[in-house]
């Protein structure tokens, strides 16, 4: 079907974005702010080089989080537990990573693996509960989030924070062998001159690899076929020989191990230690980005960049006396309108496809009759 992809992948999100900004404009008008001025301010601030670097840095964890959520979505599992998994994973990986120093690549890899294992165990618990006790994963992952928040707070304050009294409460600093270098040299090579303090985190490369890996796993591998079949029609997947319980467990393990990497960009690229105000919310916002990108890796990348851009651009609103919560409202509206507009367009596309197939079948019929 020519044009179908263009309709669903470009036209639908563009329309949705437009609608969302118009609706948010009305919200701004209600508080006596000219939406066009506000949007112009955001745009002008958002496209400065520092803002763009910051937007990408913000987009990377969102993208990884969206990947984790999307793996679950693909088989109809709603993993709400990415939030808890990545916080717990970041804390434990930060603690473990600070205990030793080995050559750089190995050190980074070992820290990432600790994060993945913690995330996998944490989300795997929800899978185990579903398989063994029939607990719906939405319930268990939400509850496990609360446990993770409090468990990590307890472990951090009571056991894992550094003893040496500094100004900030944090775990020990990870030795430099465990850091992921920034990509600024590449930016310089491209003729850009990032200002001091503005660094493009190196985890971006790993995120891109994860995105490609997601595509291969979901769309090209046998496992991905079973995963998608289970999501589209569980009864048919079961009859085709997919073991539904094993599928739930492996999906939650994979989703959790990706979730365990959500905080790594921040941890290994910037903080180098787990700090008390380690950024939260990537897990929940990842759900929105996965919806926005409709579980498609490229779509989710764009969604994450859009959210990153908007979050960064929102900073200017404070200075102009505009409530920056308006950006959160726009983000919510974008997700809603994308879901609705996509549904409308995909119904239209399905109708068209069915009609075309019916016509083609009728033509075949006539040919057969004539022959």
């Amino acid at each position, binding site marked *: 079907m020519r044009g179908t992809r263009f309709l669903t992948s470009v036209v639908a999100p563009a329309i949705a974005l437009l609608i969302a900004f118009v609706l948010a404009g009305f919200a701004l008008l209600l508080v006596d702010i000219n939406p066009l001025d506000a949007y112009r301010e955001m745009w002008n601030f958002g496209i400065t080089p520092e803002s763009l670097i910051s937007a990408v840095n913000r987009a990377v964890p969102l993208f990884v989080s969206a990947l984790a959520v999307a793996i679950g979505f693909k088989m109809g599992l709603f993993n709400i537990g990415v939030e808890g998994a990545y916080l717990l994973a970041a804390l434990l990986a930060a603690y473990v990573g600070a205990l030793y120093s080995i050559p750089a690549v190995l050190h980074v890899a070992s820290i990432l693996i600790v994060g993945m294992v913690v995330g996998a165990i944490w989300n795997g618990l929800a899978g185990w509960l579903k398989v063994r006790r029939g607990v719906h994963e939405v319930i268990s992952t939400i509850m496990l989030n609360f446990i993770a928040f409090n468990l990590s707070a307890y472990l951090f304050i009571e056991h894992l924070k550094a003893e040496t009294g500094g100004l900030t409460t944090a775990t020990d600093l990870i030795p430099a062998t465990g850091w992921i270098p920034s990509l600024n040299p590449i930016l310089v090579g491209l003729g850009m001159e990032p200002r001091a303090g503005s660094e493009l985190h190196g985890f971006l490369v790993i995120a891109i690899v994860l995105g490609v890996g997601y595509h291969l796993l979901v769309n*090209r*591998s*046998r*496992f*991905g*076929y*079973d995963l*998608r*079949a289970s999501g*589209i*029609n569980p*009864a*048919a*997947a*079961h*009859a*085709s*020989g*997919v*073991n539904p319980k094993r599928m739930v467990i492996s999906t939650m393990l994979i989703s959790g191990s990706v979730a365990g990497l959500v905080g790594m960009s921040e941890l290994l690229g910037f903080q180098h230690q787990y700090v008390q105000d380690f950024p939260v919310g990537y897990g929940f916002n990842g759900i929105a980005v996965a919806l926005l990108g409709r579980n498609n890796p490229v779509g989710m990348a764009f969604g994450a960049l859009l959210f990153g851009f908007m979050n960064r651009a929102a900073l200017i609103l404070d200075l102009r006396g505009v409530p920056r919560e308006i950006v959160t409202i726009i983000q919510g509206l974008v997700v809603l309108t994308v879901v609705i507009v996509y549904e409308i367009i995909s119904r239209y596309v*399905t*109708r*068209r*496809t*069915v*009609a*075309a*197939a*019916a*016509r*083609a*079948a*009728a033509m*075949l*019929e006539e040919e*057969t009759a004539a022959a």
Partner: protein
Amino acid sequence: MAQEAAIHLSGVTKRYPGVVANRDVELKVMPGEVHAVVGENGAGKSTLMKIIYGMVQPDSGTIEVDGRAVHFRSPREAIEAGIGMVHQHFMLADNFSVLENVILGSEPKSGVRIDFDTAATQITDLGKRYGLPLDPGEKVERLSVGERQRVEIIKVLYRGARILILDEPTAVLVPQEVSELFDSIRDLKRQGVTIIFISHKLDEVLEIADTITVMRGGRTVGTTTPAQVDARELAEMMIGSELPSPETRESTVQDRVLLEVSGLSLANDVGRALLKDVSFKVHAGEIVGIAGIEGNGQAQLVDALIGLEENATGRIVLAGDDLVDNEARDRRAAGMGLIPEDRQRQGLLLPSPLWENAALGHQYRRPFARGIWMDRREGRRQTEEIVRRFRVKTPTVDVPATALSGGNQQKLVVGREITAEPLVLIAAQPTRGIDVGAQAAVWEELKRARAAGLGILLLSADLEELIGLSDTIHVLFKGEFVARLDPAQVTPEDLGTYMTGAAKQVAV
């Protein structure tokens, strides 16, 4: 003066995207007659009935009821005009009583209370008048299929219907229940009720109808009476050519046992037996038929064999290996194939492209997979092969399965299972809901596979299909095999007797 027609449709046309479901339909139903509308699946009967019942609005043409032009916008308006419909799939709340089901949506009120007593009396009266005996207080879940149908008919009469549309009413009934239904229909007719009887079972139509209208390809191709035609002529009107038959008489049964099931039992969570000590053999080149009224353990038998029931006990020996503890994928790999009874529920990924549907159940091996990856190119090629060999009508193998008609979806499912060359194929309702042409194609393929040495376990509600194709027939009743019959000698009536549990062979 000529009598006014109860229903008169003229020039009715209904288009759907890409297809014309009804074209210039002419239908004249006289008051107090039983008027049969026959045609193969996809001939436009359902659309026509939906138009009469107000569920669908025609693009053009006129509809008259009792001589007055009508334009129904919803079934409610049709009901007000005295038209009632009994759907093929019952729409009853199982845990409600007969009474509650009948009055649901049109409850008689006294003040704010529902007047159950009046309603109960009315139902009993209706039952007596039309020969539809029912106990208003009985829960629907305890009723047989035939009794449920009576509830549906009473429900429609209770709403004041004088024109009754019965959509494939015999599809779910055993022969004995069919004759009871026909008695009721004759009673209804005597009382002046007009009946439109939708069917594709010609002997039944010839038995009960006063007038017959035949549909083909969305058009009404003629109107006749049972006195003027026989089944053969009617069939030829229906399909425009000669009727295929499931008949296979030359035996291809070999000595080699492919599948030996013994002592297969299954209980549900509360310990009720769903399968009791089921034992049978399938030889190479043999079709073993399983007869039974739906809900007597067929679904459980299939699930237990294919590996979807973990709690099944007994022995399932396929080519010498006991598979009872193996899971579904291992059983597939060992040579078990499945045509599921409900292709859309268990056999297809509707939004996915055809080639991914062709891979379903075979996604772990060549040509669909290579190592841990799906082999998209070989998978497509294999699917194109299936499409060609089994004449699946589709523009490409990349269209979603949902775009295909039911018959073509089924041909794809049958094709993918047969081309995978299993040792034993479990075929559950392989021709349900598909048109005569596709049905003949499926029968042909099953026969060919049988001749090539495939063992087939055939579960079917179509007794003619079962008798025509099978080499041996077992009857399943309440989870047990109650009879083993020779299809060469058995009649549908005999089968019905065993299927209802009215008789049981001592030694099976």
